């Protein structure tokens, strides 16, 4: 192979010995100024988290001077007119609805994510992604409408009588509520709402398992399920738990859809067919009157504070796990 001749530089074309121009400084300055401005903007998210927490805590403070935190949280009577602010019915209601919702969502979501990552063809996966995006895009109030139209009657006419008849002896299945507005209805609606989120994050976590690892297991003659059980789940368990917790956190704070189907009676629930009154519903339903009764505003904003703190705890823990595994968060 012959090479092309390299053209010889004339004396004037040579760069050698020429000094670097200092005139870049104006551009460098621009760069540095922009850097400072942008850095200030970047502090905004951190400042915002702090500000929201402190702001709500400050508005909670007046009522804490009258009642102890423990009395508020464990109190079971809610009569703002009489100055009784017991949060326990709302806190327990929040957890009842969330646990039922997450309990219904978790098994099918993990199985679906496993199906997508381990069994489904590329074409099925390609359809599922936009489908999950669509499910996630539907506003919560629409889920609420669906709950009122489809789920509440279903619980009232079919599910509750069925459980009453065959499982009535189990305390949490006792049905004393004549309507379908219940924890179970809220749980079903929540389960469908958080499903796309849990599936998407779990799927991302499962995709971090390298193909070589799967093949290493298949190569010794393991079935797909044996591979999933002893390799894939083992490897990804922290991430899957984080995905599930994150999904449950969504359920904790969900307001409108739940509010529309859980009945909103301030009582401590005993069965999944009882009505409940979760914290977000309490805040949304009563914000209008909160300035008219003494300490009512502190109580309601305190409810928001308690909700925020519960969510922050779960949220930070699971986000840290996921950031470690994925280096990012699902969009």
């Amino acid at each position, binding site marked *: 192979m012959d090479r092309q001749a390299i053209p010889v530089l004339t004396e004037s074309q040579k760069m050698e010995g020429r000094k670097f121009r200092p005139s870049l400084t104006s551009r460098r300055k621009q760069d540095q100024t922009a850097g400072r401005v942008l850095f200030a903007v970047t502090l905004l998210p951190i400042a915002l988290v702090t500000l929201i927490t402190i702001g709500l805590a400050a508005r909670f403070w007046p009522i804490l001077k009258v009642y102890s935190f423990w009395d508020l949280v464990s109190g079971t009577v809610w009569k703002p007119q009489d100055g009784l602010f017991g949060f326990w019915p709302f806190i327990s209601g929040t957890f009842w609805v969330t646990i039922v919702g997450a309990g219904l969502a978790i098994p099918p979501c993990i199985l679906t994510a496993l199906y997508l990552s381990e069994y489904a063809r590329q074409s099925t996966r390609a359809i599922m992604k936009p489908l999950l995006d669509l499910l996630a895009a539907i506003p919560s109030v629409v889920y609420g409408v669906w709950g009122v139209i489809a789920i509440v009657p279903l619980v009232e006419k079919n599910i509750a009588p069925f459980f009453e008849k065959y499982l009535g002896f189990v305390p949490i299945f006792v049905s004393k509520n004549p309507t379908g507005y219940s924890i179970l209805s809220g749980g079903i609606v929540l389960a469908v709402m958080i499903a796309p989120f849990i599936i998407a994050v779990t799927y991302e976590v499962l995709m971090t398992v*390298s193909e070589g690892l799967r093949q290493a*297991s298949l190569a010794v*003659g393991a*079935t797909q399920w044996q591979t999933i059980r*002893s390799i894939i789940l083992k490897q990804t368990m922290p991430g899957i738990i984080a995905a599930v917790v994150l999904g449950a956190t969504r359920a904790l704070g969900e307001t409108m859809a739940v509010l529309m189907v859980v009945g909103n009676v301030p009582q401590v629930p005993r069965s999944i067919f009882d009505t409940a009154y979760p914290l977000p519903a309490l805040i949304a339903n009563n914000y209008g009157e909160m300035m008219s009764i003494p300490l009512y505003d502190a109580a309601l904003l305190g409810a928001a504070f308690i909700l925020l703190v519960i969510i922050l705890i779960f949220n930070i823990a699971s986000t840290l796990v996921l950031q470690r595994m994925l280096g990012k968060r699902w969009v």
Partner: protein
Amino acid sequence: MDAHIQIKNLNAYYDDIQALKDVNIELPRKQITVIMGPSGCGKTTLLKTFNRFLELTDKTSITGEVLIDGQNIYERDIDVTEVRKRVGLLAQRPFPLPMSIYENVAYGMHIHRMKNNRNEYRKAVRHYLEVAGLYDEVKTRLTNPATSLSIGQQQRLCLARGLAVEPEIILGDEPTSALDPVSSQHIEGRLLGLKEQYTIVIVTHTLRQAKRLADYVIYMYMGEVVESGPAKEVFNNPKQERTRAYLEGQF
């Protein structure tokens, strides 16, 4: 020739690209067969048809037959996990399973419930670690995670893991390409020792490794088998012009 693997009219496709064209060859029992050729010529694809790994990739299809001891492994009622138990694989890079050294070797045996009690498993694990030439290096730390081993040790662990399910055939997909020279030599030595008992098929793109290992050679080019035969004949006296060109280093 006592053929262990026979391939008849084998064609393989990725989507609509043909990766293997009308392959008809036989691989001898208890010898090392080396598949060589320039990259992208279908070596690895051919290897993947022997343990039905090609079907793990979407949109692949094959026609023709791969017979092991006269039985077509692509017949409908064939148990694919049984095929993979009888045909072991040593991958390009070691993939230790996320468990201890001991559990890695025992994994396949557990899956197939091959032993009756803990003691038998322990003996078997020790045996296969010895066969893979790793036992002395790890005997004091069998419960350590497998990822704590060096990459060369990991590859020998993968060899032990593959041997533990008692295959008849061992496939190696460029099994030393990720290793340092010393570790490579270690693996090559093991393979040469194992051919007394196993039929071994290795894919490689280094000619020198092919010459060191091969009893039987398959030379592929552009998805076709150009030439196959005993190593001595092919290396010293290739019948095809394309084989000669490859051996002389023209690719």
